[in-house]
């Protein structure tokens, strides 16, 4: 069963007074539990695509259906509600809210969704990542690797239907990146999480179910 169906997606941006097409008639379909890795040079439109799928921006044309819901038909408030319930996000850096502790950061999606009764799950995830002893610390007191692991916990705690990860280990040193990525992939497999992961690392693609490259506004199969 497909989790995500994108069809005929178009997006243009105004650059120096002229309209530039970033995405042109883009189609994408993802099945539950699939790990999709997205490659492409800087400026190819990867971020724009994630932006549209997350519902923080609207396409010029085309539809994005997720769990049967047409995101393009929703207003801003509707898209926000949908995002907080069904999508998880991990960025390259600046992932955590600096004024919330580790545990509070992880509990945030549960709190926003009114599911605080699932707090034990958050604690379990924290334990799985080996961060229980850091639960009351603030992000600034964590190392980069620890911050990314907390961000992964938070992105997954409410069991979203789709995880969007934008170079989640891109800002870490190689050893830490490998460690964090291993933990992340392990969790994704265990949770059967549908994931779109943007990466520049060809080596990582071996873990993907499917690898696509964004080229001239369209997706091309890599392997």
């Amino acid at each position, binding site marked *: 069963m497909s989790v995500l169906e994108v069809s005929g997606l178009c997006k243009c941006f105004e650059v120096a007074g002229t309209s530039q097409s970033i995405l042109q008639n883009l189609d994408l379909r993802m099945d539950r539990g699939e790990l999709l890795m997205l490659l492409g040079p800087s400026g190819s439109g990867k971020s724009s695509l994630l932006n549209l799928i*997350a519902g*923080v*921006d609207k396409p010029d044309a085309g539809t994005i259906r997720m769990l049967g819901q047409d995101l393009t038909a929703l207003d801003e408030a509707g898209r*926000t*509600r949908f995002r907080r319930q069904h999508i998880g996000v991990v960025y390259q850096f600046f992932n955590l809210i600096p*004024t919330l502790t580790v545990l*509070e950061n992880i*509990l945030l999606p549960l709190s*926003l969704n009114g599911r*605080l009764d699932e707090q034990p799950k958050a604690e379990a995830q924290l334990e799985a990542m080996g961060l229980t002893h850091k639960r009351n610390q603030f992000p600034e007191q964590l190392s980069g690797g620890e911050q990314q692991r907390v961000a992964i916990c938070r992105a997954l705690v409410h069991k979203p239907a789709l995880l969007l990860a934008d170079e989640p280990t891109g800002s870490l040193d190689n050893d830490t990146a490998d460690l964090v990525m291993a933990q992340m992939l392990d969790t994704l497999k265990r949770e059967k999480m549908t994931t779109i992961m943007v990466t520049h690392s060809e080596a990582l693609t071996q873990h993907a179910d499917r690898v696509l490259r964004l080229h001239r506004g369209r997706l091309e199969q890599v392997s």
Partner: protein
Amino acid sequence: MIFRASLRHFRHHPWQLLLLLLGISLGVAVVAAIEITTDSARHSFREAQLQIYGRATHRIQAQQRIPESLYVSQRREQSHWQSAPVISSVVKTSGDEHLLMQLIGVDPLREQGFRNQLGRISGSDIGFSDLQTSPAVVMARATAAEVGVGLNEQLTLITANGTQTVTLVGLLEDAGDPRLQQLLLMDIGQAQRMLGMEGYLSHIDLILDADEVAAVKAWLPGGVQLEVTEAALSERAQLASALYFNLQALGLLALVVGLFLVFSSVSFSLSQRRPIFAQLRTLGLTVNELYRYLAMELLLIATVGTLAGLLLGIVLAQLLLSLMLNTLSDLYVTSPLSLLLLNPLSLGKLVLMGIGGCMLAAWKPCQQLAHVPPASLQQRYLQEQTALQQSRQLGRYGVPALVFIALVLMLWQGSGLWGAFAGIAALLLAGAWLMPAALTGLSHLLERQLAGTQLALRKPVLLMLIRDNRRNLSRTGIAAMALMIAISATVGIGGMVSSFRDAVQLWLTERLNADLYVSQSRVLPGVRKALPSEFITDVASLEGIEAVATLRRVQLSVGGRPVNLYASELPQPMRPAYQFVASDRNAIWQRLAEPDSVLISEPLANRMGLRAGDQLVLTTNAGERDFSVVGVYYDYGSDSGRILMPATTFIRHWSESPYGLALYLADSGRLDDIEQAIRERWGGALDLRLQRSSLLLQRSVEVFNRTFVITDVLRLLALVVAFVGILSSLLAIQLERQEEVSLLKAVGLNRLELVSLLLGQSLLLGLGAGLLAIPVGELLAWGLTHVVQLRAFGWSIPYQPDLANWLTALLLSVSAAGLASLYPAWRFAHQRGIRRWE
């Protein structure tokens, strides 16, 4: 290159530059407006007096008027003294709109060297004969047009001697100069006849050198004095000292708030460009080169902001001057002239002050920026740590030091009025320095209450906004300080005004304790007509009157300032009207019955350093005499002071007849009957004014409240300056948190939650500032009532903290912060998408 980079930064963030300029402009505008207003009012007072005194250095005067024979003797015996006789009186034009004018009667032959108005007359060929043959006057062309009288036409004047008709025979070419527009010139002989002052003069003007002064004093008979006109000028100017004092204090406040705002705006503007400066420093820009650039940029911005502020200040000064004129019209017989004085020297001083103040306020942020190692220039976290450390250091060392300085200055009498002001400024600064620590404390306290609770888990935005106050201290700290100062000024000045109002109201209620006050209607302000003795006897004999007190008054000069001496029989019912500073009431009243005993008001006692048992020298009709001070009473009627003595003592030394009666009724319910009886018996013969104390009290309170309108306007302006500070800081935070907004949106926070985050942070800041402003404001009120008022006016005010005032302060603080956050919060919530993905 640096300039270009900065210019582009401002082009991308124009509101930053705009708010920086607005901050400087508003601060300068308020200070400039106050400076220009007070300058103009002082100048107008002086100029108005110069129209009367001319170039005279001294004048011979008496309590009331001086005999003309004195002038004749002087001319005959001491003709080498340059002198001119003068009649001076306030008159009113008749018609629908009465215009108050200063009439001066001069001797045209003796005027040369004294006043120059005669040289400005035009409109017809006027000879001395024109002025002398019939009651003829000369007035300003603009005034003649306003009154609607032409040359050689008749004009009706209401004088102390009744209604008189005069002919306009000449016009003063005023060329729009308002200083001449309240002036009426007349021949001295005509003026004497018209005012019923034949054989008398108001004063004799003299131009004396230092050697002649002693000779004149020696030559003068008893009952007349030689006064220095400079003293008279400053004495006149001092009439409005309370108002000037208020304005100066508020000017100081606006300056402090303005400087905080500049500091905040500059700090933020620099911190925004930290990455640019960091790269430049990494590329090899030296500290000195960076300093030079920053100084140049700041000088440019400060100059533009100051000039804009000056223009705004001039507009504001027009408004303040008209408010001031209203107040002065309420308080004094004649108001000063509405001449807005734009003195180049004063304007230059304001420009220097604006630019200098900006440079001074910006020095610290520039220094911090220039001396931080390039590698750490980009670290936002480090900035916050530094801000936190600084706030701790200020709280630990700076605040106690400032409080100590403030206490020394305020408790040590020798520091004078400006010492008291400096003490208050130190107190405000101490409060401001405590602000970041107070915000941190409040944030910790709320967090402790919330953390771990279900509420915090359900509403994580609550915890976030509480902690944000600590995290953004380097941005919000200064704005919170400015708000706290503005609010504490509201509490402090509000507390002082309300305590003052309560004290005055109580004082008036006690003082106006008679049932009815009777006097003759005044045709002119300041002119009191004597009551006939048969009228007094008749009223005293009316059935139902328990006691009658006659009221007499004479103006004396004590310690170089005018002091009113009042006298009355002081019957038993009148005595509760006087509350004494110390000592036994009964003993004071007993001692007052002894010959040549007086009571003096608290301001006079403080000004002259007198206390019960001391001697006071007063000028009587027979020359100087010693009087015994037997008590000091509370009084808020005059900061120059007042003297009270029994009528029996007064009659022995002065000749003034009673101008009023205070009637005490056995049964207050018969007030209507008594009023009716007086009107029936004397209404035809005398133009009587019967005033009930309740009505007098109401009018006095109205005047009091109007006096403080200008204060309210300026307090509001200080609040506007603080408001701009918060707006600027919150916009800065909003800009800096774009990354965070992206994250929050991605996590799923909706717009309302995003708005709540910044709005809540701002409301908390307002709450913190409001809470700290209450104790700081109370200390300020204490300083103003117990120290400044006492040193400025000599009167003490019992201070009563007002809970309603506290609530207003909190509401004002939270509302100002909330309102200032609306636009930044809206922008915060409407930022486009997740920037990283854009």
